[in-house]
């Protein structure tokens, strides 16, 4: 059963130094507030995992929380590049960042394998690309029935997963809707999980397209209204596109980023 707790306590229980951790979300429902709390708590040596690392990952990387990034597309959606990510990869600032790079299909299937308790997943993927040369985590596999050669990727087991959702009830059952991405898989792939929610309600009335994560697969729930800002929560808020534009400016040089970082702490 999930424990309902304040954000700072929940983050300290769920995200530890050295964790392989995902803050998932596909443009929608990005758990920014929890990410900022991780920065405040000074977590280090994280292996950050995400299909679409965006501004919150740029912030975590710039703040020196990460040693490795496992991902498939890193950018500022609709704006351009992630400057802190680039600075870490190209110049090792503030610390070097190891990369493990996949395609979206590969990452999604790695989450599926972990959520399914399997050591690997099979897909038609990566064929003819240079991606398999850069990691041992892409391998050929032969169909035992047809002899066809496909691609295997290992399960993406997480120490911790953090997502944002619209609602939870008082028992800790979680409900999210709109674009739900790989959030269910990330929670089911993790040993520990935290869900920040817009609000805690008495009853989760059914919603079209909603995913419900039962309380018994969630460890912590924290009520954080607008906890996805500048991302959005479908039916609660809209995306703050100006923030993403401003981030391009803030993150372009180390000084303005440092000033921003002091504001978080």
């Amino acid at each position, binding site marked *: 059963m999930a424990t309902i707790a304040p954000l700072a306590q929940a983050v300290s229980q769920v995200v530890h130094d050295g964790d392989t951790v995902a803050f998932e979300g*596909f*443009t*929608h429902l990005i758990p920014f507030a929890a990410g900022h709390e991780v920065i405040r708590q000074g977590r280090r040596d994280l292996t950050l995992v995400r*299909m*679409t690392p965006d501004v919150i990952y740029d912030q975590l990387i710039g703040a020196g929380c990460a040693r490795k990034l496992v*991902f*498939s*597309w*890193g*950018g500022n*959606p*609709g704006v351009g*590049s*992630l400057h802190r*990510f*680039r600075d870490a*990869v*190209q110049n090792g600032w503030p610390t070097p960042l190891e990369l493990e*790079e*996949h*395609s*979206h*299909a590969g990452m*999604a*299937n790695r*989450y*599926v394998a972990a959520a399914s308790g399997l050591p690997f997943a099979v*897909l*038609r*993927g*990566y*064929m*003819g*690309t*240079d*991606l398999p*040369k*850069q990691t041992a985590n892409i391998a050929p596999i032969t169909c035992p029935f047809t002899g*066809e*050669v496909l691609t295997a990727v290992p399960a993406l087991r997480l120490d911790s997963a953090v997502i944002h959702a619209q609602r939870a009830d008082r028992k800790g059952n979680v409900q999210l809707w*709109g*674009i*739900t*991405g*790989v959030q*269910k*898989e990330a929670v089911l792939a993790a040993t520990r999980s935290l869900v920040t929610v817009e609000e805690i309600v008495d009853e989760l009335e059914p919603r079209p*397209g909603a*995913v419900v994560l039962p309380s018994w697969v969630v460890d912590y729930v924290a009520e954080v209204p607008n906890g996805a800002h500048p991302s*959005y929560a*479908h039916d609660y808020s*809209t*995306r703050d*596109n100006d923030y993403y534009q401003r981030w391009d400016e803030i993150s372009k040089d180390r000084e303005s980023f440092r000033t921003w970082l002091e504001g978080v702490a």
Partner: protein
Amino acid sequence: MTDYTADEMMTVAAARALTDGSVCFVGIGLPSTAANLARRTHAPDLVLVYESGTIGSKPATLPLSIGDGVLADSADSLVSVPEIFNYWLQPGRVDVGFLGAAQLDRFGNINTTVIGDDYRDPKVRLPGAGGAPEIAASCREVFMIVRQSPRAFVERVDFVTSLGFGTGKGDRERLGLKGRGPQLVITDLGVLRPDPDTCELTLTQLHPGVDLATAKAKTGWDLRVSPDLVTTERPTDQELAALRDLTA
């Protein structure tokens, strides 16, 4: 007739390439603009699929990102990200994969990973693969929309993020890929198509007012030109009005 920019010509030419009723897996940015323009002009029943899991989106405004709420609200069906890749893209159900690219070579291979020849110490770190490797592999055909420049149109990409025709004819078949690969590259200058014999991207179309010398100068390889080179029809007033309404 209304004046227009090279980007507008490119987007209109790209939109025209999409057949009504077909299913298009849409990358964000220029491909999304072109696909939405097609829906507003000659292809009202074009099915737009976005990798965020929205199938049959009919956005009233142009989405800024792949995960905009308007894509979800207007979709026929909304599925998880694993499902969109596994059930919808991978089996080859999609007619057209519509992609952009940072770098593209004469065999239609795409690089969105790194500029420079050392992956571990790149000159420029690009965003990475996203959905493109499997879009390029699995869709029945791939259309690309890329602004033409010697930096973007290179002899050989620094990194093959998504496969076009590899080193030439036969590579895709040898790898067991079912899709036919890049069949159309729409640029701000014209349109390239793979040569049926060699699969090398060949200029088959120039936009009005663009001369061949410019197209060659803006290409980083020795550009082949089709003997049947034609000139693109200029954007109609209706196309331009729809495009400007969309991007306003």
